[in-house]
């Protein structure tokens, strides 16, 4: 539990903005701006935040589906950023991803069998018969019927398609799975089926998850630790229970207070943030949250707060806590 399988160090992803007559770089969208965290073996680290906070970019950068601008991604002691394409391709056997919209990430012209067999072929696993056996086994693992093996993605419901996406990720026996909003497109009753499946699989195969989501209720359910992102930076990182019961960062507090709770008798103080998230191409100086923060101090507009440990592995980047 304590051993870090993945260390992300000062990860940055800047997208250049081109403009002017000469089509020069006139600025950068700082999608991820210096994010560092560790993921322990067998845990579920959730990254939460609103649109544009850089949670998905972080997730994809770890697999190098997006090439990071700067920083190191150390997986089992090896810096993934230093690998060439061929080495990285082989390494992806250990790192897999599940996407939000299973319809967009499954080839509509391939049968389930082919979809699930492809990763095995790519990574040279087994011969034809072994692969076929493996595909049937995978389908059963994720709760699908082996009679459905010749079907195409459109013949499945949303929840079933997400199961296929999970089966595909599992096919190469990965160690770490990045799940990018895996249940956001699903109805509540289907969502809980998929969440339970993910928990079962984690236990069965000793998987480590990075669970990216905007839904704080889902995250409370599935995560071991939670990192909160705002405008490309990690503002708070703590054990799940600690984060939900004792949120320290003003942004985390506002975020948690904004989530509707399905209980008409539930009362709490609601912190309504004014305004919108500033543009990541021109983020505010100092603490990026200061434009919407109700505790804003002078120092917040000037100095960027570091992410510091305030005890119990509770990290926070805020001038109020140092």
């Amino acid at each position, binding site marked *: 539990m304590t051993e870090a399988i993945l260390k992300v160090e000062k990860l940055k992803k800047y997208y250049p903005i081109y403009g002017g007559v000469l089509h020069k770089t006139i600025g950068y969208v700082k999608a991820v701006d210096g994010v560092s965290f560790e993921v322990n073996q067998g845990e579920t680290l959730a990254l939460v935040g*609103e*649109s544009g906070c850089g949670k998905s970019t972080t997730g994809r950068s770890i697999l190098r589906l997006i090439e990071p601008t700067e920083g190191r991604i150390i997986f089992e002691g090896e810096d993934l950023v230093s690998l060439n394409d061929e080495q990285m391709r082989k390494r992806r056997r250990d790192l897999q991803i599940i996407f939000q919209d299973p319809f967009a990430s499954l080839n509509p012209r391939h049968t389930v069998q082919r979809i699930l067999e492809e990763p095995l072929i790519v990574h040279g696993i087994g011969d034809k018969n072994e692969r076929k056996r493996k595909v049937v086994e995978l389908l059963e693992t994720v709760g699908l019927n082996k009679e459905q093996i010749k079907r195409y993605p459109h013949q499945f*419901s*949303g*929840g*079933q398609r997400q199961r296929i996406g999970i089966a595909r990720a599992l096919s190469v026996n990965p160690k770490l799975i990045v799940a990018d909003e895996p249940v956001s497109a699903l*109805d*509540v*009753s*289907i*969502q*809980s*089926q998929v*969440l*339970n499946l993910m*928990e079962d699989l984690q236990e069965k195969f000793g998987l480590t998850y990075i669970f990216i989501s*905007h*839904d*704080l*209720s*889902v995250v*409370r*359910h599935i995560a071991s630790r939670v990192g909160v992102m705002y405008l490309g930076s990690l503002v708070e990182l703590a054990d*799940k*229970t600690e984060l*939900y019961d004792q949120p320290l960062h003003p942004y985390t507090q*506002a*975020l*948690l*207070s*904004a*989530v*509707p*709770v*399905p*209980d*008409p*008798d*539930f009362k709490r103080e*609601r912190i*309504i*943030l004014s305004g*919108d*998230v500033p543009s990541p191409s021109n983020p505010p100086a100092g603490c990026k949250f200061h434009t919407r923060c109700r505790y804003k101090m002078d120092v917040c507009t000037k100095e960027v707060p570091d992410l510091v440990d305030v005890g119990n592995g509770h990290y926070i980047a805020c001038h109020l806590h140092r």
Partner: protein
Amino acid sequence: MDLDKAGENVEEDYVLEVDQLKTIFRTEDGDIPAVSGVSFSLKAGETLGIVGESGSGKSVTSLSIMGLIPKPQGRLSGSIRYKGKEIINLSEGEMREIRGNEISMIFQEPMTSLNPVFTIGNQMVEAVLLHMELSKKEAEQRAIEMLRQVGIPRAEEIMKEYPHQLSGGMRQRVMIAMAMSCNPSILIADEPTTALDVTIQAQILDLMRNLKKDFNTSILLITHDLGVVAEMCDRVIVMYAGKIVEESDVRTLFKNPNHPYTKGLIKSTPRLTSEKQRLYSIPGNVPSFKEMPKGCKFVPRCEYAKDICYKNEPELVYVGEDHKSSCWLNIEQAPSIEEDAS
């Protein structure tokens, strides 16, 4: 609080009464009954929630009320009365008088409801001029006033901007301003905050609550999010496969749900306030309209299913004061399923 008021209100004046509404779409694969026999009524100043999953018919219900079902593929039957007047199957011209003036609607994705090539001002003024007898200047003033009302800073400048220049939350505010600009009696909000981030959602829900208080507008809120329902609604209708399965006030629905589907839905919702390790899940999927079960539509997924459930469809009957449910367990003397309510 609003709940108590609604309870004390003796002279029930309904602004909207829907009776046995059926909406059937004709397709190449045969007729699809998207809504099959839905009845409910909306009181003045009340927020009524319609909850359900994809394919439950909640959006088609709202589009039917607005007269926005494409014809001739879609056929409506039953009755929809607005303040006592029948509005089902009105002509397009007659319906236009009601839309905007009397019943307004906002949608999930404001970008698809706003015209990208006209300024916000242009679109707002058009709506006002269409429905109110005002001069262009007065209409502009009215538009600016409405934008301020929904909490848009720099309202005058926003009038000159195009939809793409605004954020998602701002666009939804513009849609609400537009919908409210002619003082409608009913606002139908179809998943108004589903596309928005939670902090922005909180802003919009807050705004809708305030508008309802200020204008005494009745709101028909269509959503899949039980959290939003708990926060916003006075009464709730739960829909499944084109039918109402349960209807009650909001507290009863969460504290003492009756229908197995409602119970399952509530139990399978992950909560911010608890860490229970394993989530309940309703087995199976919503049946497609082509393979709809014969008896109760929920029967293939129901853990309490009995023989009768496979044969006949249960009716929506009272199971308590202002509390209706359509389940054979209530109708036949059936084993109690109360122990599951917790």
